[in-house]
């Protein structure tokens, strides 16, 4: 079981399916609160939704350079996906969240340890 943090600026974003995977998850729609939580608690992976979620990655990496994040994009704008990948997330997935997709992604991210961070993509 992993300690997860989920952030999306949209307060209606539904993260309920993460519970069904057996992980502990704390959800936020305020980026400041999310950052405070990340500073004060152990977080294995942060799930970040939308453009604001991508913006949050830099701040999480200030807490830990190896902070693992999974990004959920609202739409397939290639520039946004390139921007997200430039910040070395574990994965970039689409909304709405599909539980099997997230499960596969989290398993890989948790098992692969430090090498989870994708630093080798040329963007």
């Amino acid at each position, binding site marked *: 079981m992993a300690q997860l943090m989920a952030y999306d600026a949209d307060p209606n974003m539904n993260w309920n399916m993460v519970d069904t995977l057996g992980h502990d998850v704390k959800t936020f729609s305020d980026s400041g609160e999310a950052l405070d939580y990340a500073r004060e608690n152990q977080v294995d992976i942060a799930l970040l939704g939308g453009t604001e979620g991508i913006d949050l990655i830099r701040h999480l990496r200030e807490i830990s350079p190896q902070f693992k994040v999974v990004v959920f994009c609202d*739409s*397939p*704008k*290639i520039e946004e*996906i*390139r921007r997200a*990948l430039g910040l070395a997330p*574990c*994965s*970039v*997935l*689409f909304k*709405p969240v*599909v539980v*099997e*997709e997230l499960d*596969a*992604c989290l398993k*890989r991210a948790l098992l*692969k340890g430090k*090498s*989870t*961070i*994708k630093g*080798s*993509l*040329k*963007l």
Partner: protein
Amino acid sequence: MEAKELAAAKTTIQRFFATVFADEISAELYQAMKSDQFLMDLEAVSQKFYSKELAHGAMVLFEFMDRAGVDTYPQLRYAYADLFLNAGNNPVLPYESFYADREPITHGESLFLMRETLRKYGLHKDPNYWEPEDHIAVEFDFLSEMNRREASGDRAAGQARADFGKQHMAWRTEFCAVLHSADKSGFYQALAELTLGYLFVAHLSSVPPEEVAPQQPGADLIELARALKGTGPGVKSASAGEGIVSAQAGRRRPATFQDDPNPLLRLWRAVWNNGKS
């Protein structure tokens, strides 16, 4: 809209992507994509899509092909070599292992999982196709075959396709972004945008309709397939010789396949008598 109609549409779309990423674009496919009919269809569907991202991808490809000149075809062949055959300064690795294993290596765990998946569904990569099984073209071709079976009434194939899509979508998204970044010709940038738009709409089609309304992803996919059917004459199988060769070198499997619906995969139509080969 029937599930079979949607599966048939996905078969066409995935065959197209399998073909354009498998190798340098053939003269036949290029001519088909440059034809007035295809361009007219592509422009028309780009204005019908509910998904603005898919519309954008189709329009970018339309604009590229519409302005393509007499020198464009050889340039696209060079572009493929630069991008995918390591001939250029900024190559793109089209292998799942590179993305999923998060190590700058090929032939990783994903390759062996992909081989296992192919075996499970009685398929095999064409031995004359030199790329490994986790190449993006082979994965699209596998999905195309599963959709073809689903369209023929095989429900298990539909489930297999859905499961595979959920496990293997993330890396294809990343591949599109890397390809878009690396390409200088404009053609592969357009394909990256169209592929990404397709992946997104296919993703939407996999969730309950009430979660994605007013989008109608199924309708978008059927329209896209109609346009891509215009490339039909260019999408040909890369035929191999007789017989099916195991992924394990030296093991041959008896085969009696009669037709070849997929360019990169072979159907095992005969019962494999293990040990007799």
